């Protein structure tokens, strides 16, 4: 049954067969150019904000939080994987593919997956299709507001390489340069089954302890930030959105 689904999943897409794309290693992809993020006390500069606004935003950078060791962490990872709460933020056309998952045909609830309206409570962010620069800004903010451990699922070819909008002045080509992505699902658009398969894949990743996107983001914070700031011109948010 599962195999069957997987077949269907990849049948219509032009993307190569195989497992979802792994995250790039940031260190191989250039430096954080000339964007200064921190001051001497390792506080965020929040240079996009006015003096007045800075009072209203927290200026703590994200931290790498070490997981527990051993069975306890495995147990927690199991719980995390079995209780995936999706952030209800439809960033692109792919968001429409989320709806069928809630219906009785696909019923994601049986896998412990359910939608949540606020990033604070969600653990998985489904980027539904192309991410324009304008949306990217909101994606970044929402992603940073989620509490770790948190996972990102890139849905559709656009998130992988820009898809049919690869030459648009306004669509990012590689999502994983801006936020860490755990699973990509190729297709334009992938069907709900594909999405479901991607979620299952994510579950295994989490259970294996590989779903450390949040820590990766914190670790490579400057690189991600530089990439984000490179495209988001009017950065009027704090540097890290708690």
């Amino acid at each position, binding site marked *: 049954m599962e195999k069957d689904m997987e077949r269907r999943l990849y049948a219509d897409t032009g993307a190569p067969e195989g497992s979802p794309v792994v995250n790039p290693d940031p260190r191989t992809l250039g430096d954080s150019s000339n964007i200064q993020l921190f001051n001497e006390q390792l506080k965020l500069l929040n240079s996009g904000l006015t003096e007045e606004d800075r009072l209203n935003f*927290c200026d703590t950078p994200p931290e790498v*939080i070490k*997981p527990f060791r051993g069975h306890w962490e495995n*147990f*927690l990872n199991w*719980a*995390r994987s*079995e*209780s995936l709460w999706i952030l*209800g933020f439809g960033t692109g056309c792919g968001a429409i593919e989320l709806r069928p998952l809630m*219906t*009785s045909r696909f*019923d994601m*609830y*049986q896998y*412990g997956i*359910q939608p*949540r*309206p*606020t990033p*604070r*409570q969600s*653990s998985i962010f489904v980027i539904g299709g192309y991410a324009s620069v304008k949306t990217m800004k909101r994606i970044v903010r929402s992603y940073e507001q989620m*509490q*770790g*451990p948190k996972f990102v699922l890139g849905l559709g070819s656009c998130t992988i390489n820009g898809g049919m909008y690869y030459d648009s002045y306004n669509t990012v080509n590689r999502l994983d340069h801006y936020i860490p992505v755990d699973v990509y699902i190729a297709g334009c658009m992938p069907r709900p089954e594909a999405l479901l398969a991607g979620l299952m894949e994510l579950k295994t990743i989490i259970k294996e302890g590989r779903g450390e996107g*949040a820590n990766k983001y914190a670790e490579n914070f400057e690189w991600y930030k530089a990439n984000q700031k490179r495209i988001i011109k009017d950065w009027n948010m704090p540097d890290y959105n*708690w």
Partner: protein
Amino acid sequence: MLSAILTKTFYTFISLMVILNYALLLIGSMARIRAKVQGRVGQPVWQPYIDIIKNYGKRTAVTHGVMFYLGPVFRLAGGLGTYLFMPVVYGFVMFENFSFSGDLLLVMYFIFFGQLGMALGAGESGHPYSPLGVSRGLAQMTAFELPFALAVISIVAQYGTLSITEIVAAQQGGWQNWVAFTNPFAMIAGMLAFLGMSMQNPFSVVIAPQEIPIGPPTEMHSAFLGMLQTNRAIFNGAKMVLFMNLFWGGATHKYLLVAILIMVVKTFLIYLYVNIVGASFPRFKTEQSIRFFLGVPTIIGIIAVILQSI
């Protein structure tokens, strides 16, 4: 003295464990039942456990201030308190909790404790949806409190006591002695009020997913949310136990386990009733909800009171 305290602590712990686990399973199974009704498979029965564990297991959290931090604590304390001031199973010391320190009025007012704390926590989060949800919830609360109060007053008038234990005691001796049958108007008013109290459709104005997604706990997450979920279980359990005690004869048997089983069955049915109503109706607007409760249920409650006082 010390041994008495220790015993009491132990009993309290047992009592809490029972209600927590039962209520979590109840929520899980009810979700599954609803799923079946909708033709879905539905989440596992133990899904609430996983969710709570996951939330407690979150690695980071943010706090907006002291009240935000304490809000869920208040909420849980409210739920625990409400539960602990009631006898759960009639006739067993282990499950009489702290019902000796206050009567029905205490329980009714202790419900406010958690709500106030939660409201304060939600308020300090600074998110506009939180107070919006709180204001809706409080407004609706005053409305359903009226029929509920009338029902309670009717029962008090009927039995001449405010003690829950005594109310339960007065209902012993067969189903025909239950308030539900000796004082049906009070039961109807109370059960209608219970719909509002459990915040399911059509009275889900607080969470209101389409308008103010999730309402008060918008900013609540991680362990805070875990705490709220714990409370949701315990508080729900407490409310159902309260209604069981008030209207449905309480739970009693000479064997403890059987008594608990009776409690389980009765509360399950009460919860089922709420869910059936919830699954069948769309949501009211806040003002419609208020008008609803101050309409028919209140009139029924008044009838119940008048019938008892003449």
